[in-house]
């Protein structure tokens, strides 16, 4: 297990390096020039040139990358051109809000999705199964932004039950904070629930046909024990992986949903940076988002290995 984790961490570091180079190169190719943006629309070419020299933008790309990367390693993500603030605190704040969204939404998805999936698998082919399948189809049939609009319309505009957008910090009261979370979370759940339920259902059906489930029944175990202790434990492996990856996705910002609900998470920050051509902010955000995604992938693999005794032991002895 330790050797495996070490290898994966080493690999993650490598991927992050490659990614940072890619991000740096791509953002360099973006239209817009940092020096002229700082100087403003009406600055003379001399002024722009001066700023360029001052920021080191006239130096070769490799040197610029080196300075940028070195800064990141020291925790310095640079300064936002548009917001005119250091990027790190802004990013941390957005990341924290995305984290809240991810934790709440995925808890709901995990509980409901696994429950529905197991139910559908156990009652395979019966009415319950078909109903779960039907609901699953609804969830995946329509893009998340469409659900978001419908939810805003129904709960916000017509029923006036919930705020349709924005965010208030917990400090200003738990209730308003929670109220702002409800609609984005429900949208996310609608989007993710179907996949988790279907995945759990199909792996559960596979496991229910295995010999060890048959043997558990031959031992006279009641169905509840067969399903929960013998089958579910093995059926959950793929589901756990997908949940962890989804976690990374939400952490990295769900651009569309955050935009619709004006939720100030990573996604909205990224879109804001791109729309305003704030190159340092774009670079930093994309890097953090990708790192979060990679990390979630790593956690997914480690979790998978940890839950699966076969892999866990194989790695210990290897």
């Amino acid at each position, binding site marked *: 297990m330790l*050797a495996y984790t*070490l*290898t994966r961490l*080493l690999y993650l570091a490598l991927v992050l390096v490659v990614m940072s180079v890619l991000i740096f190169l791509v953002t360099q190719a973006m239209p817009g020039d940092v020096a002229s943006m700082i100087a403003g629309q009406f600055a003379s070419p001399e002024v722009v040139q001066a700023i360029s020299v001052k920021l080191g933008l006239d130096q070769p790309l490799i040197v610029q990358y080196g300075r940028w990367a070195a800064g990141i390693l020291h925790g310095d993500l640079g300064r936002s051109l548009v917001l005119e603030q250091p990027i790190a605190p802004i990013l941390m704040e957005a990341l924290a809000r995305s984290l809240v969204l991810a934790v709440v939404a995925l808890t709901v998805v995990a509980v409901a999705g696994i429950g529905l999936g197991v139910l559908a698998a156990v009652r395979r082919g019966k009415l319950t199964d078909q109903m779960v399948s039907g609901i699953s189809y609804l969830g995946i049939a329509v893009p998340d932004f469409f659900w978001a609009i419908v939810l805003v319309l129904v709960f916000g505009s017509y029923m006036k039950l919930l705020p349709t957008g924005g965010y208030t910090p917990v400090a200003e009261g738990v209730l308003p904070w929670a109220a702002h979370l409800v609609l984005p979370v429900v949208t996310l759940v609608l989007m993710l629930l179907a996949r988790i339920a279907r995945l759990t259902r199909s792996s559960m059906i596979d496991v229910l046909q*295995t*010999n*060890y489930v*048959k*043997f*558990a*029944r*031959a*031992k*006279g*175990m*009641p169905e509840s*024990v067969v399903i929960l*202790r*013998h089958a579910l*434990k*093995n059926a959950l492996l793929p589901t756990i992986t997908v949940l962890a990856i989804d976690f990374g996705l939400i952490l990295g910002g769900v651009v569309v949903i955050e935009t619709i609900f004006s939720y100030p998470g990573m996604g909205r920050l990224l879109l804001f940076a791109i729309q305003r051509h704030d190159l340092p902010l774009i670079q930093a955000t994309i890097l953090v988002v990708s790192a979060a995604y990679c990390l979630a992938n790593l956690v997914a693999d480690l979790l998978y290995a940890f*839950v*699966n*005794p*076969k892999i866990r*032991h194989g790695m210990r002895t*290897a």
Partner: protein
Amino acid sequence: MTTAPHTRSAVPPVAVPAPASRPAAPLLDVRGLTISYGTGRGTLRAVSDVGFSILPGEVMGLVGESGSGKSTVAMAVLDLLGEGGRVESGEILFRGTDLRRLAPAERRALRGDSIAAVFQDPFTSLNPALTVGRQIAEPLIRHKRLTPRQAAVRVEELLGEVGIRDPRRVAAAYPHELSGGMQQRALIATALGCEPGLLILDEPTTALDVTVEARIIDLLAKLCDSHHLSALFVSHNLGIVNRICQSVTVLYGGVVVETGPTGRVLSRPAHPYTKGLIAALPRITAERRARLPSIPGTVAKLSGPPAACVFAPRCPFAEETCRSHPQEMRAEGDGTGVRCWKADALATTSWPDEGGTAPRRGALPARSAPLVEVEHLRKIYGASTSILPWLRRAGTVAVDDVSFTIDRGEVLGVVGESGSGKSTIGRALLALTEPSAGTVLFDGADFPQQVRRGDQTLRRRAQLVFQNSAASLNPRKTVGQAMERPLVLAGRGDAEERRRTVAGLLTRVGLPAAYADRYPHELSGGERQRVNIARALATDPEFVVCDEAVSALDVSVQANILNLLAGLRDEMGLSYLFITHDIAVVAHIADRVLVVYGGTICEEGPVGRVLRPPYHPYTEALLSAVPRLAEDGSEPPRILLEDSALPPGGRGGCAFAGRCPRKLGAVCDEQAPPVRETDQGHRIACHIPLATLAERAPVFPKLAGGDAAAR
């Protein structure tokens, strides 16, 4: 003799005086059991009107080939038929109570408690996510209301009872950390836990190696005896049934064709099918036949009650009556029943024999250079030289310094258990895997090297017949397309000529030429294996590797294929490398044999010599583990091997040292054993002196005489 009353059990209660000590009320009494499966193409009758009874303390064998319905019966007793399976009618009386009348919860309460089961594949029967101890404890906690702590104590007792030396470690282990034999012991411990009255054993040793199988069977026999257990023993292996069962019921096409005491049924079979099944079994002791008696055709599937004798289409004794009237069970004394109206008339008639005897050949006179020469072959899998120190691996030694030759027209058998490296040897010979060291010469040319250089011409001369007849044919190509391709590659003839060649090849392997238009899934397993052989023959090869080519087939089909292979050898002068785990098959078909263990050759020589002392200790153990029929002579004292030891190979000593019952000491672990020649090319690699090895009594004293001599 009377006909059994049809309405009641198929096996009427026989008027045999019961043992005085206890009443003869059967523990399990199955009557008129009919089971069907709903499939996409309508219902399939898996079991028709099956009846039998098991007395307390009796082990009854339920034998039959695939599709006979034997496992279905076992699952019906357990109420675990699975999706689509339905008991149409019949009674399953356990201690006098019809299980079918019980509520599901009541049946569940019996399962694992009074009726326990052990299934075929121990690895898949254990839950990979739970420790072995926990899985054994489950029924104890459930049925016997033990606390987890009490259960843990009992688990260790049970593991000790099934012959596991360190119960504590095994209880804490996960299934994948145990060997197959240990896993099966754990399953048996689970079944014994609640002290059941009846064991359902569904092919409990089929997935295991022969030496492990022998130990498990001995254990089961001992336990049934000491616990006064009754068992329903489902198996396809007559030798195993002979070893453990007091009575036997033979199923064919979902119908009981014969039942009776094991000794009588196996030595004097009454039903033609039983006769054929026993005759078709390759045996070590029987006089070597040029051809095995075989049962033509394949099992027919029923969709309703049988309208004729189910076996009539394949029966050489069938008459018009057989094809128009369903047969009824005819009971005789001593619990015997036969479903054949001609049984009495056929009492002294045995199954037709197709060929004469064929004395075993000794070493062939060296006429010319051997066809295949293998020198110091070595193959290591999974070696890795990563820059990360913790990812470096030495790899697993699959084949370790193996040398041998195959003469033209010779059949060389390779016998070994799983992990012996026997398949790797075959693949290396055909340049399908690159040897890590050593040379493989085919007719004097370095085969792997030629292939590496892109020269594939030798491929036409050396071919392979696979074990899995289904997987070796591309499902999306017709038989004709599959067979034509080697001809195209060899540039033989135009389309019309190739078509004729394909038709000729199909005829040669005993299939209608029209089969060229069929897809593989439209053929039976035996037919597919014939297609595989025909395809291998397409380019007139001189050498064919048969890698477990008959292992996946039923006995009756296996005999057909073995006969076909023997016939082709005689007609075309083919050489075979015959790889198998079944020493009886090798004894039947091979001229010479290599016994391999852990990637090394333990013993080699003419078949007749290898079957007699002096034996390599592993050969001796292997032979003593072979299940045998009554007429093969009484069972010898079994040489018991540990279920498994460290992964063998590549440690400098003898590969077998870890499991060897006759290990001398450190010398076996540290030094490679010397290879000593007895005579006639018979060599043994062992530290024990030949004279000492020769002192052992023969495992098969009744070997047919004179066959060790060179022709």
